[in-house]
């Protein structure tokens, strides 16, 4: 009886103590979480993946009425602009046909020259289209959640594009959802090259709308408007994908304006390199092209 009372007193004392210092304990917990975040990335990765797989479907459901309303608005807006848009698309179609014929001729020429030089091609890429479900961005982080489907081959590190250029890379994959780290996020680093002068550098996000261009040589020849594309260094991103253009050049600060409008993304493409077996299967397809070139 006495022991039970002592135990009860001890428990109530502990409870009172916890209540008294709850705020301090929770502050300490917040700092511990930050430290764990900095060191133990496996634990954080797993927990964040679980959170993404829970949050993704919930937002996907919450979004339905708003998406419906937006679709109806877009439909009527599109109807009113259909005539003008049709005329413009016809013009664009004529122009693209000419470019397509030119590109085909160049492709054949390229295949021929590559064969003469015995050039080994980089692995072919495969695209997966994904719908944006949530924008998790705020002043301190820039990321998105996309629905990629259950059987997609999306993996961490793959490059994400829209029709204008690079958007970012896959940060986490959780079930049918993937978290995309935008190229403006402070944790984003993308190896790039200046298209005109072939100078290599790194597009580094810093949570502003215009990422920095870092690791450039001091004598780098740069001009406002220079196109920046992925360099393909490190083998994560395919080379030649448009990232943005140089918009500011200071002594210590070179900034890029991304081509992709990161604030209004609806659908994105996720690029993955094909595996060797798949590439060899497709090689038979390229044989046809070679035969055409031989002719």
């Amino acid at each position, binding site marked *: 009886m006495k022991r039970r009372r002592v135990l009860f007193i001890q428990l109530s004392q502990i409870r009172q103590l916890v209540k008294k210092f709850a705020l301090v304990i929770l502050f300490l917990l917040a700092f511990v979480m*930050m430290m764990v975040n900095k060191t133990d990335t496996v634990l954080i990765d797993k*927990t964040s993946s679980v959170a993404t797989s829970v949050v993704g479907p919930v937002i996907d459901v919450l979004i339905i009425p*708003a998406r419906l309303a937006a679709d109806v608005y877009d439909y009527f807006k599109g109807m009113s602009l259909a005539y003008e848009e049709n005329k413009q698309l016809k013009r664009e179609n004529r122009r693209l046909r000419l470019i397509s014929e030119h590109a085909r001729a160049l492709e054949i020429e390229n295949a021929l020259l590559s064969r003469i030089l015995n050039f080994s091609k980089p692995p072919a890429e495969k695209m997966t289209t994904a719908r944006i479900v949530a924008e998790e961005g705020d002043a301190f982080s820039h990321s998105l959640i996309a629905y990629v489907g259950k059987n997609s081959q999306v993996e961490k590190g793959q490059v994400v594009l829209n029709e204008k250029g690079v958007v970012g890379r896959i940060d986490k994959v959780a079930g049918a959802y993937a978290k995309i780290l935008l190229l403006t996020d402070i944790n984003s680093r993308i190896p790039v090259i200046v298209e005109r002068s072939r100078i290599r550098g790194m597009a580094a996000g810093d949570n502003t709308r215009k990422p920095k261009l870092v690791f450039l040589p001091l004598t780098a020849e740069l001009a406002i408007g220079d196109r920046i594309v992925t360099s393909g260094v490190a083998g994560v991103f395919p080379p030649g994908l448009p990232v943005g253009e140089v918009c500011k050049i200071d002594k210590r600060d070179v900034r890029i304006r991304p081509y992709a409008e990161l604030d209004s993304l609806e659908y994105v493409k996720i690029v993955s390199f094909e595996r060797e077996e798949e590439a060899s299967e497709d090689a038979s397809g390229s044989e046809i092209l070679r035969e055409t070139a031989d002719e």
Partner: protein
Amino acid sequence: MLPDRKFYGKRPMNDDFRETLTLYMQRLLPLLSSLILLLLAYMPFFPMAFHPEVSLICVYYWMLHRPDVFNLFSVFVIGLAADLISSSPWGGNVFELLVLYVLVGYLLKYVNGKPFEIMWAGFVLSCLVVQLAKWFVLSFYYSQFLPLGMMIFSFLVTAAVYPLVSLINVFVQNKLMTDEA
């Protein structure tokens, strides 16, 4: 005459259970509505820079209006949820909301029961302080000063949408909660 045994034995228990459940649900409403608003704020319909920190508004509102059902634990849960949803480092949002919790504790006597404008002004002040605190801690975390411009813009957007989010919270408080909760 005694009522039917079946009726006598079960009906009051069911009513009690239902009442207790309703009471608990009502007590959980501030936390649940805050979590739903937090999720809604991440919908991809507005430019990323325009995403307000809804968690700050909810914590401030419920701490002022129903501190009896919105305690430190609720603040921690909302912070943790915000950390899990966003891609900012874990603990950042928890820290931010805990700072707000402390601040509101001090502000309570100056803004509680005052006109809406005073409450709004109190929020603007608290929001600025907690966002600066978060900016400082995250700058320390990343070992570089984060851009202040984005933080200030986020602060302005959050301060501007305070009346709208408060209106939703007023609806939850007046229409879905009873005084007993």
